[in-house]
């Protein structure tokens, strides 16, 4: 589904990604861990098409298509979804209005008829249950005045509505208490299907107790320096990142 080859990216002339290689197949969950400043969030944003990052080398193939040349909205319509670490507040635009516009843009891309207001409301009612989101939040402006937990839950709710093929969760666990974490993780697990995949970017192993990854990667200095099964995350939790750094230097 996703094939990243030798990806280099920079922002304002600072190199952040220095040759990432990553392959994600349908049905898989990949966790990306790593210390602060290793490039995890940059990778997530580059995949979503954030233009402030400059891809200087390498390629990203998504279902065989060159992702780098696609504007962010087209990536979204092709099924890529980024759950933001810091969801943006948009005063004056209601959550439902925004989501309906997004869903219908994606449906148009798929040659489906747009949903009218009635269809849309009954559709999102089902999705609301999935992430236990408050009805009240839907009528409020996007993320405005939401608590940290509400914002993260709203990201997963959007994911439930838009049904992406490849979801990228950028530190969705940060700032969540244990109950909120469980609700968010449950939502992600319920949305799991054989034909979709997820990349979970996280600092802590905690989230991976709930969203069990098939592969864990360690990102360091803009490269993937170690990959392994879910036990790798446990080892990192236990021993920190220093041994990975030492291993890498000794190679």
């Amino acid at each position, binding site marked *: 589904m996703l094939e990243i080859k030798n990806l280099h990216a920079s922002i304002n002339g600072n190199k952040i990604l220095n040759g990432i290689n990553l392959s994600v197949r349908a049905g898989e969950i990949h966790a990306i861990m790593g210390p602060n400043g290793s490039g995890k969030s940059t990778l997530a944003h580059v995949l979503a098409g*954030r233009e402030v990052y400059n891809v200087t080398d390498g390629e990203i193939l998504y279902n065989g298509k060159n992702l780098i040349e696609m504007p962010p909205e087209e990536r*979204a319509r092709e099924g890529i979804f980024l759950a933001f670490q810091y969801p943006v507040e948009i005063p004056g635009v209601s959550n439902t209005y925004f989501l309906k516009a*997004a869903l219908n843009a994606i449906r148009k891309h798929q040659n489906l008829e747009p949903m009218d207001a009635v269809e849309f409301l009954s559709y999102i009612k089902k999705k609301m249950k999935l992430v236990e989101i408050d009805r009240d939040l839907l009528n409020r402006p996007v993320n405005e005045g939401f608590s940290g937990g509400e914002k993260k839950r709203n990201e997963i709710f959007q994911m439930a509505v838009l049904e992406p093929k490849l979801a990228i969760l950028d530190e969705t666990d940060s700032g969540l208490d244990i109950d909120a974490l469980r609700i968010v993780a449950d939502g992600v697990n319920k949305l799991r299907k054989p034909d979709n995949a997820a990349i979970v970017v996280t600092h802590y192993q905690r989230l991976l107790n709930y969203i069990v990854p098939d592969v864990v990667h360690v990102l360091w200095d803009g490269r993937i320096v170690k990959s392994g099964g879910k036990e790798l995350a446990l080892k990192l939790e236990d021993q920190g990142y220093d041994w990975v750094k030492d291993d890498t230097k000794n190679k």
Partner: protein
Amino acid sequence: MPQASDPIANYLEHFSKFEKEISGESEIRKFRQDAVEEFKSFGFPTNKNEEWRFTNPSQISKIHFNHQLQKQISGEVKKQIDELAIKKFAQNRLVFVNGIFSNESSNTQFSPAIKISPVSETLHQSPESVIEIVKRPMIEGRNFFTSLNTAFMRNGAFISIPDNTTITDPIYLIFIASDDTTPFVMHPRNIISLGRNSEASIVEHYIGVSKNVYFTNVVSNIILNQGAKLEHTKIQTESVNAIHIGSTYFHQFESSKLHQNTIMIGGAIGRNNLISTLNSKNIECTFNGLSLSEGEQLLDNHTTIDHVMPNCESHELYKAILNGKSRGVFNGKIFVRKDAQKTDAKQTNRTLLLSDEATMDTKPQLEIFADDVKCTHGATIGYLDADAIFYLRSRGISENAARDMLTHAFANDIIGRISAEPVREYLNKIVHDKLNQRR
């Protein structure tokens, strides 16, 4: 022909003709002559005058405007009114075509409790009721154009709402300019008084269809007596070559509540002066404004809230959206006089620039002479939030749609505060059309 270098001569010449036409109105003759002396002493303003620093009126002084108003209400104009006005208010409207009251387009099924008539009629029948309101002393906002209007005042709406009367349907005043023959000027004057504990909603709508240059020089005097509540909305959608200069003077008395909305969209030059004097205690005054400009338009809002007495609140939020090479001005004065203790005044001005070539001048001006008051002000000028655009795009929404959504949301912050739903609907459509026609 008057020389271009003496712009006042033109108006004086028209005044002497005008005076002959209105020979019957002796009681206000003196009043008009005083106004002539006043505008002569002010002189035609230039941008050396602090009040006109950003909007140079000297280009207006160069145009020789015809004062002979063209009374024309053709089928064409009727169609244009139906098309461009707020349809839901069709039952309660006074229409002025090229400055002249049009009986056939107006629909005055107003509550019999209210006195409502064209000012021309009131001047004829009871000139004292006009003078009583117009002569009210103005500490702030006296200017050349208001005096000019006073000298020539004849057209406009006279509305008097008695005590303890609630008017549920908004009163809709339409001023449509359709004459294309020659540059012309009109001086509409609206004189409105709300009795004690009365309640009303009034919409003034300035519409232009003429392609030629014309000049609307409007003044409204509005009194809110004790306990009166008014939502007053001014919508300016003049045509592209129009010049619109307007001054609205409110006098508020004890426990009255004013909710004023000013929407400026049309005209080559639009200047709006809005002044409310809070003459007694426990008054609430809310000013909301939205300007939408493009091309080489210049839209200028000068507001004054004058806190004279204690325990009054004022809230002011003005927003501007500028595109193209357009220019915007916001000058917001708040006076807190020495007796106006416990004043709570808040002023905010926000500008959204959609183009690198648009410019905005904003100037908050607070003058506080009382010591126990709460006064805040803030101004921001910026572009659309890049993070928000990316967020929307990352959900599949196109870049253009994302920009429109954010721009509309910015405007809707003002539109959403208007109580009259048909006005909100109308403005949402106008904003939507404006955003779409850019492409």
